[in-house]
C-alpha cells in the first residue's frame, strides 16, 4: 500500500485502534485534515480552542484507559495545547499529540506560525519527535503510542513538517506490529526479594496504613488493591488522584490524605509504623512538611517509575514495576502467612482511628439557609446514585467534590491533580462523554474555572455530548480567597470576580439548558430535573455561600498532625 504522509498519519491512528481525534485545523496540518476527510474510521472532534482539545483527549484517556489523541497545527496551535499537555504530563496520562510544523526547508527561519514545538514542550512531555522523512512517520507513530501507554504513561508529541505530508509524495506503508527501543525498557514485575522484604514488614506492623495513589488507577490495579487491603484489614487512604481505586464507601477507607484530607487519614499517617505507598509519589500536597512526614513509620514504596522512589521521602523497601503483577505477587506471599498472620492484631489501631474519625472533620454548618457547596455535592451524589463520572476544575469546588462524593470505582473521578489546571473540567467532561456515551457525566466547577474553557460548550452542542455542569458560584476565586483569609488578614486581593455573566443565559446562548439555583430547597429538585434531561447539557449555576472554606486543612509547610479544623467538626484541641 502506498500512502502520502498525511494519509499515513491517519492510517496509523486507525491501525492503532484510535476512535477519536480531538483537534483544530490550520495551515501546516491541512494535508492531514484532507486525509481525515477522505475516510470514516477515525472520527475528528472539532474543538473551539486547542487547550480544549488536549483536556478533552485527557478526559477521554482517564475515563477509558486508552490513549487520548490530539491534532493541532503549528505555532499557536501547538502553544495553545501546551497547558493541556503539561496537565497530562503531571498526572501521567497517556496521550499522543500530533502537531503540524512548518516545512523542513523553512524551519528556523521564523516562518509564519513557526514555533520550536519540540523545544517548548520538552520539559512537559514523556518524549517528543520531530519527523524528518515521510518514510519515518509510521514507525514514529508506533513509538509514540508505545511510549505514551507503557511504563509510567505520559504525553508524547509527534511534530510533523508540512512538506512530508504532501499528498503527491507516496511511500510504501506498513504499520509495525511491534516496536522495541534499545533506550527504553519499561519495568514489568517487581523484584521478588523486595516483595518478600515488604511482606516481612507487613507482618510485623502494628499501626499500618495503605497509601494508594493514581498509579493504581493508571496501572489497572484496583481489583488487586482491594484484595490486598481486605486480606490485611489495614486502613486505606488515597490521594486525590487515587480516589475510586479502593471504594470510597468502604469502612476500611479512612478518607483522602494531605492538605484537605481527613483528620483520621492524616493522623493515621503521622502515627503509623508502616506506610505502604502504592502508585503514589509523595506530592507536597500529600506530605505536608517533609521533615516531619510519618516520623515513626517504615515505608514500602511500589512504583513503576524508579525516579519516584526516594525523590522526596527515603523509603525502606522499594519495589519498582507495574502495580498489578506486584500486588499479585504480594498477595501470593501474604497467603503463605495465613496461619501466623493475626488480623485482629491491629484492633487497637482501628480503635484509635475510629476515635479520630469521630471528630467528623468535614462537618459543615447545615443550619443556614444559604446553599453550602458541600450540600450541593452531597445532593449530586444522591441524585446520581454515586455512579456519575465527575470531572472538576481547580479550587475549592474540586476539594468539596473529592471530599463529599465517595467514588466506588476507579476512573470515575477526573481532575487535574498535579498541575492544577483551571479550565480542565468542561472539555475533560466532553472527553469522558465520548468514552462513555451512556453514562452520567458531571463537571463540578466554579465561576472562575468555568470561564477558562467555556467555549467548549459549543463543541458539546455540535457533537451531542450532554454533560451536567455543576457551577458552585460563590463570586470568589474561592481557594485564593480562603488562603487570603488565613494568611493575608483577609486582604482579598483580586479574588473577587465582579461583572460575572448570567450563566443561565450564556448556556442558553450556546444552545443548552441553563438554570440558576438560589435556594437550598431547590438544589435537589434542580439536580433531578437536570439529570432527567438525558440528552441535554444543563448548566446549573448554584449561588453558594460566599465565605465557605474547605476543612480540614494542613497549612503550607505544616505536618500531618497540625491541621486546621472546621468550626463544625467535633474536634477539641486537647484530643491530640
Amino acid at each position, binding site marked *: 500500500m502506498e500512502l502520502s504522509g498525511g494519509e499515513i498519519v491517519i492510517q496509523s491512528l486507525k491501525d492503532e485502534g484510535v476512535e477519536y481525534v480531538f483537534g483544530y485545523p490550520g495551515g501546516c496540518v491541512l494535508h492531514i485534515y484532507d486525509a481525515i476527510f477522505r475516510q470514516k474510521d477515525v472520527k475528528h472532534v472539532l474543538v473551539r480552542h486547542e487547550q480544549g482539545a488536549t483536556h478533552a483527549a485527557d478526559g477521554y484517556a482517564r475515563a477509558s484507559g486508552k490513549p487520548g489523541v490530539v491534532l493541532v497545527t503549528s505555532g499557536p496551535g501547538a502553544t495553545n495545547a501546551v497547558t493541556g499537555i503539561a496537565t497530562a504530563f503531571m498526572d501521567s496520562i497517556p496521550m499522543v499529540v500530533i502537531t503540524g510544523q512548518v516545512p523542513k526547508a523553512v524551519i528556523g527561519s521564523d516562518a509564519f506560525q513557526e514555533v520550536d514545538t519540540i523545544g517548548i514542550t*520538552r*520539559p512537559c512531555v514523556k518524549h517528543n519527535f*520531530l519527523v524528518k522523512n515521510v518514510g519515518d512517520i509510521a514507525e514514529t507513530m508506533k513509538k509514540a503510542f508505545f511510549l505514551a501507554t507503557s511504563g509510567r504513561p505520559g504525553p508524547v508529541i509527534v511534530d510533523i513538517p508540512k512538506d512530508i505530508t504532501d499528498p503527491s509524495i507516496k511511500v510504501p506503508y506498513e504499520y509495525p506490529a511491534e516496536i522495541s527501543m*534499545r533506550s527504553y525498557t519499561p519495568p514489568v514485575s517487581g523484584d521478588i526479594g523486595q516483595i518478600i522484604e515488604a511482606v516481612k514488614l507487613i507482618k510485623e506492623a502494628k499501626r499500618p496504613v495503605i497509601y494508594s495513589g493514581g498509579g493504581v488507577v493508571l496501572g489497572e490495579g484496583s481489583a488487586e488493591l482491594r484484595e490486598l487491603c481486605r486480606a490485611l484489614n489495614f486502613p486505606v487512604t488515597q490521594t486525590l488522584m487515587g480516589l475510586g481505586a479502593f471504594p470510597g464507601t468502604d469502612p476500611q477507607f479512612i478518607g483522602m490524605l494531605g492538605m484537605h484530607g481527613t483528620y483520621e487519614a492524616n493522623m493515621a499517617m503521622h502515627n503509623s509504623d508502616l506506610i505502604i505507598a502504592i502508585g503514589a509519589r509523595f506530592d507536597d500536597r500529600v506530605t505536608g512538611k517533609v521533615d516531619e512526614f510519618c516520623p515513626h513509620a517504615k515505608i514500602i514504596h511500589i512504583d513503576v517509575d*524508579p525516579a519516584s*522512589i*526516594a525523590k522526596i521521602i527515603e523509603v525502606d523497601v522499594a519495589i519498582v514495576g507495574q502495580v498489578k503483577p506486584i500486588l499479585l505477587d504480594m498477595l501470593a506471599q501474604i497467603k503463605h502467612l495465613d496461619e501466623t498472620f493475626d488480623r485482629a492484631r491491629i484492633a487497637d489501631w482501628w480503635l484509635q482511628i475510629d476515635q479520630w474519625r469521630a471528630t467528623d472533620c468535614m462537618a459543615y454548618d447545615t443550619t443556614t439557609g444559604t446553599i453550602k457547596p458541600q450540600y450541593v455535592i452531597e445532593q449530586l451524589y444522591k441524585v446520581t446514585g454515586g455512579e456519575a463520572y465527575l470531572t472538576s476544575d481547580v479550587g475549592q469546588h474540586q476539594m468539596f467534590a473529592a471530599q463529599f462524593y465517595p467514588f466506588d470505582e476507579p476512573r470515575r473521578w477526573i481532575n487535574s491533580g498535579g498541575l492544577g489546571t483551571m479550565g480542565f473540567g468542561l472539555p475533560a467532561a466532553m472527553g469522558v462523554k465520548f468514552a462513555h456515551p451512556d453514562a452520567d457525566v458531571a463537571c463540578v466547577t466554579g465561576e472562575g474555572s468555568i470561564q477558562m474553557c467555556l467555549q467548549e460548550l459549543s463543541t458539546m452542542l455540535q457533537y451531542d455530548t450532554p454533560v451536567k455542569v455543576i457551577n458552585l458560584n460563590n463570586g470568589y476565586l474561592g481557594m485564593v480567597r480562603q488562603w487570603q483569609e488565613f494568611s493575608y488578614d483577609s486582604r482579598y486581593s483580586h479574588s473577587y470576580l465582579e461583572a460575572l455573566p448570567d450563566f443561565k443565559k450564556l448556556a442558553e446562548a450556546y444552545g443548552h439548558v441553563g438554570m440558576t439555583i438560589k435556594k437550598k430547597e431547590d438544589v435537589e429538585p434542580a439536580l433531578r430535573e437536570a439529570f432527567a434531561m438525558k440528552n441535554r447539557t444543563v448548566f446549573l449555576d448554584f449561588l453558594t455561600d460566599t465565605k465557605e472554606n474547605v476543612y480540614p486543612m494542613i497549612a503550607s509547610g505544616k505536618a500531618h498532625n497540625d491541621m486546621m479544623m472546621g468550626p463544625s467538626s467535633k474536634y477539641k484541641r486537647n484530643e491530640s
Partner: protein
Amino acid sequence: MSRQHIISMLLENESGALSRVSGLFSARAYNIESLTVAATIDPSLSRLTVVTVGSDKVIEQIKKQLNKLIDVVKLIDLSESFSLERELVLLKVKKSDATEQKISDLGADSMARITDETDGFLIIEVSGEKAWLDDFLLTLGDDIVEVVRSGVIGLSRGERTLTL
C-alpha cells in the same frame, strides 16, 4: 554532604538529545560543572560526560532522571569506581623567558607542552585531572591571556565499561 560526580552516558545521536540532558539539569535546578559530548565510533550513539555536584540523594535523583530520558541508552557514574579522568586545556600566554621557565618548572610529568608559537604568543596544551588543572592555571595566574577547557571526560579502569 555535596560531592563532585562524573556521570558518563551513551545517548541516541539525534538532534535534540543534548538539549534534553541540559534541559533536565536546568529544569530541576541541578548543577553542571562541565559537559562534553561527541559521537562514538558507532555513529548512532553519542557519549556525553557531565560533571555535577550534589548530595548523595541529589546525585541519585540526577541519575534516575537521566535514565528516564528516552534518548539516554546507558549511564555510568565514574565516581563510583576507580576511573581515569582527563580534561584538556588550551591556554595562550605572552612569550617570555619567565613563562617558559614556569612551564618547564612544572616538570615533564605535567603533560604541559607548547603547541604553537605565533607573533610572540604561545599556546600551551595540557591535559590532566580537573583539580590538578585548576592548580596549574592558578600557578600561571596573570600570565594567561586566554584559556579554554574541554570539560572532563573519563573511563572506568579495568573491566568495567560503558558499552552496549
